[in-house]
């Protein structure tokens, strides 16, 4: 009896926590994220599953038992399989495609450049990470945080540096949730009041046929250039054609409800669980967090500055705030842009335009991920 009791007690989470307080630290981080997601409503669809995953993943246990996410044959390991193979991110993109309306982008193709410009942040961060002695594959995975797309970051990291999925995913999602904190100062710093007050024209109405042709053109042009973007963009545009074709509405409906919700819950929860203190709390993770903040800031700045450069050549100026929403982070950054625009001029409606940049930012960072992947071949 005594041995059994001792053996049980030394296998409780309480015992392991008493041996290694880092678990407590991570559980507190999880609780903080839960608070941000629930009380502050920062991107709750992402933060709630991740945060609860952090809590659950940091309840320590005896290794070698088939319990944890990193142990073969555990339930969590099988769920985590969808992360490490890149399946969940691809499936999320399918649902995203089935819920995204590209109309305002189609009405204003030039806004697509802002989604491209924001990806400069990715490549600047690549330099930074290389300079900090990260291996090239690690550096590329870190850089893609600047794309501000959770699934894209997870996908690329799963392919290039699977050991970093935890910190990179957490950094990506944290900064996406912290968009309201990160972006406004940069936007304000880089624009004049005059520029922030620029109003955009009402976009023209877009025909059904145009919306139907877009996913086909999109997948061909983007993926013939960067075939490595196929697992993301192929699925994104598949979802979009299900939506826009209008003849398979039941498939589109399932894609944008049951399918994406399921992938979202498991993706978030597993990513959260992957932050087990003993593998997560390393100096590298800290560096990744710093580089992630850098990536987000650089991406925001690149977008804004590029918009200002475009204005030098355009007769009809665009509001440079829109550049900030090129980072995607759907729809957080579009909201910030819109709010700042309205703050300067309550009659200024930037939301539609900003969401156009958002969706082009999704495409842009998927291409960037493909390009980085192919560079590391």
């Amino acid at each position, binding site marked *: 009896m005594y041995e059994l009791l001792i053996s049980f007690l030394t296998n409780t989470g309480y015992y392991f926590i008493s041996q290694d307080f880092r678990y407590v630290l991570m559980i507190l981080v999880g609780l903080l994220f839960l608070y941000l997601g629930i009380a502050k409503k920062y991107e709750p669809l992402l933060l709630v599953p991740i945060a609860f995953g952090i809590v659950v993943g940091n309840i320590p246990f005896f290794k070698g038992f088939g319990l944890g996410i990193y142990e073969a044959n555990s339930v969590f390991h099988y769920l985590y399989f969808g992360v490490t193979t890149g399946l969940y991110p691809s499936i999320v993109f399918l649902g995203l495609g089935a819920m995204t309306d590209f109309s305002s982008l189609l009405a204003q193709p030039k806004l697509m450049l802002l989604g491209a410009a924001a990806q400069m942040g990715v490549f600047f961060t690549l330099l930074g990470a290389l300079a900090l002695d990260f291996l090239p594959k690690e550096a590329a995975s870190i850089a893609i945080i600047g794309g501000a797309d959770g699934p894209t970051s997870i996908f690329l990291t799963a392919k290039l540096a699977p050991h970093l999925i935890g910190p990179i995913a957490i950094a990506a999602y944290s900064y996406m949730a912290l968009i309201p904190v990160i972006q406004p100062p940069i936007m304000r710093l880089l624009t004049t009041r005059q520029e922030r007050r620029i109003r955009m024209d009402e976009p023209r109405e877009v025909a059904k046929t145009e919306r139907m042709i877009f996913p086909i053109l999109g997948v061909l042009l983007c993926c013939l250039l960067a075939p490595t973007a196929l697992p993301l963009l192929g699925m994104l545009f598949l979802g979009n054609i299900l939506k826009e074709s209008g003849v398979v509405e039941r498939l589109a409906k399932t894609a944008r409800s049951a399918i994406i919700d399921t992938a979202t819950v498991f993706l978030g929860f597993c990513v959260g669980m992957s932050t087990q203190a003993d593998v997560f709390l390393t100096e590298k993770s800290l560096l990744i967090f710093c580089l992630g903040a850098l990536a987000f800031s650089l991406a925001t700045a690149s977008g804004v500055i590029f918009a200002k450069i475009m204005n030098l050549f355009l007769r009809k100026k665009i509001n440079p705030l829109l550049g900030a929403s090129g980072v995607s982070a759907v729809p957080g950054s579009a909201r910030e842009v819109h709010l700042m625009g309205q703050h300067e001029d309550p009659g200024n409606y930037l939301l539609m335009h900003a969401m156009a940049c958002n969706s082009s930012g999704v*495409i842009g960072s998927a291409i960037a991920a493909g390009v980085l992947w192919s560079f590391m071949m």
Partner: protein
Amino acid sequence: MGFANIAANNGWSMAFLGISIVMTGLIVLSLAISQIHKLVAFWERRQAKAAQAPAPVVEPEIESPAPALSGQCPINLDELADLYQPLTEPLGAPFELKELYRVAGESDLPHPHITIRCFREAGLLTMESEGLFSWKR
């Protein structure tokens, strides 16, 4: 560490080339989509012209693929109910299903069994109490 490391890992090339490729990709795509509406307009003009030619044989309404998934119920349930409902007026409300079958048979309406089951599944016809039914439209 630092710049040396970037250069050693081909960093500058990757960054420059990466930005260029992403830019190229989205510029090409944005040019392409800026042309779609012209294509669509051209297409529609052609179709409009074709429409002025004598119309081809009109296909019956059953062409729609909808019944594939909604089981074996007729599509135009509401129209059918328009046919059936008057028949039940003499019966008062609620009426017995048996009576509805009888009058439907007398009026020579096609497929009364299936149609009436469909009414019930679609909630157009609901059971008030044991064996007595009424319309719910």
